[in-house]
């Protein structure tokens, strides 16, 4: 059976979840994987809760539906925890990654995730404010995802960022993004 | 372009029908529509100054022109709309019922026969 990894992203519109979903897919593709990345389309207003999806597989991906039983859930905004059931359908041995100032223990208590589920937290917004100078947690959180899950290696994520941003942005913007990825990779705490 | 003749239109076999039901251009000339007329424009040459307003207004290109002068009406294609009559400012065009023409023609034929008999 093929090795299919399914990632579900929770965010608010404007936080760059779709870009992150595509960044992970594109990076996996650099390793020769088959990929899928898509947003869930609905009413789109900045701040509205949204979902995005990434699939990575070593064989062609046949399914074309939303991800209901993800291996990995990434939450870009912890205020969503009050209104959205982010762990819905998450596999018991899956991984939950949050952009939050809460500790792993606090998140575990809050969401009541099973002990078999890996929980990781990183202050991606704080890192983004330090480095990119804007609250765009989508790039740093991919660094955390790389550290915690190994779905995509850090060096390829950075290479991909340089390829994507190189065409559009100034060198300092690219450097800031690369630094944010590095910091989230190092600062993420897992338990 | 080689196309089947338009007057055999109804006899075309499916194989003969040109792709897209395309036809040679200008075939309206072959299609006599004068029979649709119930009113007929009549031209009075003596009043006509060849201002060409009738020519411009005619939707069926039925005003006949030679050397820039109005010379008559193409009754094979004139559908009798009367726009030319409406546009004429020189009383050079009148509009009459087709029956009157038929009646006049019958009278004319009768008089010809009469004259022939007398001779």
């Amino acid at each position: 059976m093929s090795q299919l990894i399914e990632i579900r992203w929770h965010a608010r519109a404007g936080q760059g979840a779709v870009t992150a979903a595509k960044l992970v897919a594109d990076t996996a593709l650099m390793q020769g994987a088959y990929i899928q990345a898509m947003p869930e389309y609905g009413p789109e207003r900045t701040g509205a809760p949204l979902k995005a999806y990434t699939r990575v597989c070593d064989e062609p991906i046949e399914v074309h539906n939303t991800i209901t039983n993800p291996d990995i859930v990434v939450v870009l905004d912890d205020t969503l925890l009050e209104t959205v059931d982010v762990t819905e359908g998450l596999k018991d041995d899956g991984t939950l990654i949050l952009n939050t100032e809460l500790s792993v223990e606090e998140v575990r208590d809050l969401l009541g995730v099973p002990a078999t589920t890996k929980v990781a937290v990183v202050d991606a917004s704080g890192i983004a404010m330090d480095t990119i100078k804007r609250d765009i947690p989508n790039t740093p959180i991919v660094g955390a995802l790389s550290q915690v899950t190994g779905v995509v290696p850090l060096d390829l994520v950075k290479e991909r960022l340089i390829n994507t941003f190189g065409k559009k942005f100034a060198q300092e913007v690219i450097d800031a993004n690369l630094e944010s990825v590095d910091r989230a990779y190092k600062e993420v705490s897992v338990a | 372009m080689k196309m089947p003749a338009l007057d055999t239109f109804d006899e075309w076999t499916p194989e003969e029908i040109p792709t897209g039901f395309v036809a040679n251009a200008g075939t309206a000339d072959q299609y006599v529509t004068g029979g649709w007329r119930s009113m007929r424009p009549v031209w009075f040459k003596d009043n006509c100054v060849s201002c060409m307003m009738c020519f411009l207004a005619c939707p069926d290109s039925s005003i006949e022109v030679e050397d820039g002068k109005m010379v008559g009406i193409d009754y094979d294609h004139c559908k009798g709309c009367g726009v030319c009559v409406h546009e004429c400012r020189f009383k050079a065009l009148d509009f009459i019922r087709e029956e009157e023409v038929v009646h006049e023609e019958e009278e004319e034929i009768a008089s010809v026969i009469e004259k022939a008999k007398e001779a």
Partner: protein
Amino acid sequence: MSDHKAFSATGNQMIAEAIRQIDPDVMAAYPITPQTTIVENYAKYVANGKVHTEFVTVESEHSALSACIGASAAGARVATATASQGLALMWEELHIAAGMRTPIVMANANRALSAPISIHGDHSDVMGARDTGWIILFAETAQEAYDNTVISFRIAEDKRVLLPVMTTLDGFITSHAMERCEMEEDQTVKDFVGEYTPLYPLLDTDNPVGHGMFANGTSYMKYRSVLRKVNHGALPIIEEYGKAWAEITGRPYELIDAWGVEDADYVVVVLGSAAGNVRHVARQMREEGVKIGVVRPRVYRPFPAEQLVNACKNAKAIAVMDRSDTVGGQYGPLAVDTMAALYEAGLSIPVKNYVFGLGGADVTNELILEVFSNFEKLEKGELDRDLAFLGV
């Protein structure tokens, strides 16, 4: 596994790329979600001078196809794209485009029709075009959307066909999802498609012709019989170009993608992206010893009846999954076509028709399992044969 040619793109991007490579003379389009990015991308190519296409901006979808028909009659190679209400607004022009035999290639991101308002994917729009005379292709993936678009030009412009071709992909599901794709070199595509020589171009003033003529009853009927014959006759030509393109790309082409039918007890017939979902679940069921085949026509008009029958003939029961409904009719469009083909072949295999995924409703594994779990009852004649709405 690694392939240097592979890159990521959405279905819409892939169609825009295919059209860019072919570089048609005219594109007239009115952007409507979810095909918008095809036209948006293409407008960029025009603005950046990457193509020589005359891009005509119009005030509606009706005008978009009208302009395409005019340009095609004039002798231009023409492409456009639409979706949903836009395709619905084109309805009268769809018939004219096919009747005038204008070889236009139009992409459609298949989508629901209002009401209620929905922007999401289903086949309600394209099924409204099924009887218009257009050739209609369905793609499962972004990759197939690209391949179908390339061969569409060959099919449309072949002198034995000369019909407009609709190259469709599922709205959002395929149009906006990013997938791993491959693309051939620009020159390879240009060489494959070749130069377009129109048959009776209006702009050939040395040979003046009239297009869009009047035909009375008998002639009209004779002509429509030609249209039917030409549309049906396109099937082997579609296959010919599909296979020729497959030879170049290495990506196989069949009129019907028949998966696992050789030894299948049951068969599911389905169009577009959902076929992948059904195959995915059927693959898992095989591990449990349940043999289900999946039959996906890549060409819907002309309908490949013979190929479909061949793929289904050994099944004990068949499920036809329609992503649109013929409200007031007995069964969905794909089911009606399938049943007619089976009946004509003298096969009385029980068929159950499901309508699914309307308005982008998610095609979950559970729903597919529901279809699978009904097969045994269907085979034994214990299942009612009414059309069923899946997941409602």
